[in-house]
């Protein structure tokens, strides 16, 4: 009798302490974790993925590493200059994304990287001329195959010389057609599959950026 009364007293006291703590925690969590944004076509990684090291080179022959992704938002597309259909489509779409964001007053604009997965034919100099055609601020990146794989494997980006290729000079490269978004910490934050719709990508970028800033 006495024992069971004591037990229920303890239970009441424990509950009396725990419930306010839980409520406070819930409030804290719901305030600091804004709701995930509704995206028009992109896929968000709610837990952005930090990158392990890689060393590539940009189109000014300067080193380009995981740290080069810090400090601003970056879009990246993986392709090669011998690709006359998919790659100009994607870079043209990203150019329109930048124009739309600029018209919306977004500053700073996200950076756009074109990563060549065909280092045997694409030198930094080739890339410089290629990306500048789309936008003077676009950055070309490439590097040794082993270093490229260090980056692409972390992003689920695949590429390889097509078995359909006729010879060593005129080969075609199969490659993932997704556009990757890195956050200002240089972490993998989102991806945009094909088809690349500039309106949707621009809207999704703003939603992701606002969500990210509110989560900080």
């Amino acid at each position: 009798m006495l024992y069971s009364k004591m037990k229920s007293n303890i239970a009441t006291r424990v509950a009396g302490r725990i419930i306010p703590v839980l409520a406070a925690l819930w409030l804290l969590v719901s305030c600091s974790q804004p709701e995930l944004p509704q995206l028009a076509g992109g896929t968000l990684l709610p837990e952005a993925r930090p990158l392990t090291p890689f060393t590539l080179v940009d189109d000014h022959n300067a080193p380009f590493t995981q740290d080069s992704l810090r400090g601003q938002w970056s879009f990246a597309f993986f392709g090669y200059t011998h690709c006359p259909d998919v790659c100009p489509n994607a870079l043209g779409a990203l150019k329109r994304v930048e124009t739309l964001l600029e018209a919306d007053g977004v500053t700073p604009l996200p950076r756009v990287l074109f990563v060549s997965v065909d280092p045997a034919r694409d030198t930094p100099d080739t890339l410089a001329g290629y990306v500048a055609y789309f936008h003077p601020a676009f950055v070309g990146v490439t590097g040794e195959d082993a270093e490229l794989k260090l980056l692409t494997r972390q992003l689920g980006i695949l590429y390889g010389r097509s078995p359909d290729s006729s010879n060593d000079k005129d080969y075609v490269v199969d490659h993932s057609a997704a556009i990757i978004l890195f956050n200002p910490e240089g972490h993998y934050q989102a991806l945009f599959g094909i088809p690349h719709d500039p309106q949707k990508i621009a809207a999704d970028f703003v939603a992701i950026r606002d969500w990210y800033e509110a989560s900080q």
Partner: protein
Amino acid sequence: MKHKWILSLFLALWAGVANTADTLEVDNAWIREAPPAAPMLAGYLCLENRTDTPVTLVGVESPLFEFVMMHRTETVNGMARMLHQDKVVIAAGKRVCFEPGGLHLMMPAPEKRLLAGDRVELDLLFEDGTKRHITVPVKAP
């Protein structure tokens, strides 16, 4: 007698031309202006077969390009690949378009860079041996 033979040959040839090349509607043809360093170019067009027999495109030629390939971009599980097409069949009454992200003509960029506003001569080659000559503008989309 000889004249009659030439006339029938002419009629046969003309009929051949009329069967494919002339009865096919070609529209929306363009070549994409490419960046200065781009080694390859892509071209697009639509073909409409208003006859009741299928038409087969087996190749494209141009004095400007070393070769013109017919390709199809296929995206499977997010992976884009370009597949060589030996021929493209336009079924009776159907319209087939070469367009960005799908079927395209692919050719090496000529030494003198093509710019928007330039015009390029192309010959479409059909399975029955007929040809269709078209002039295609270069455009920057």
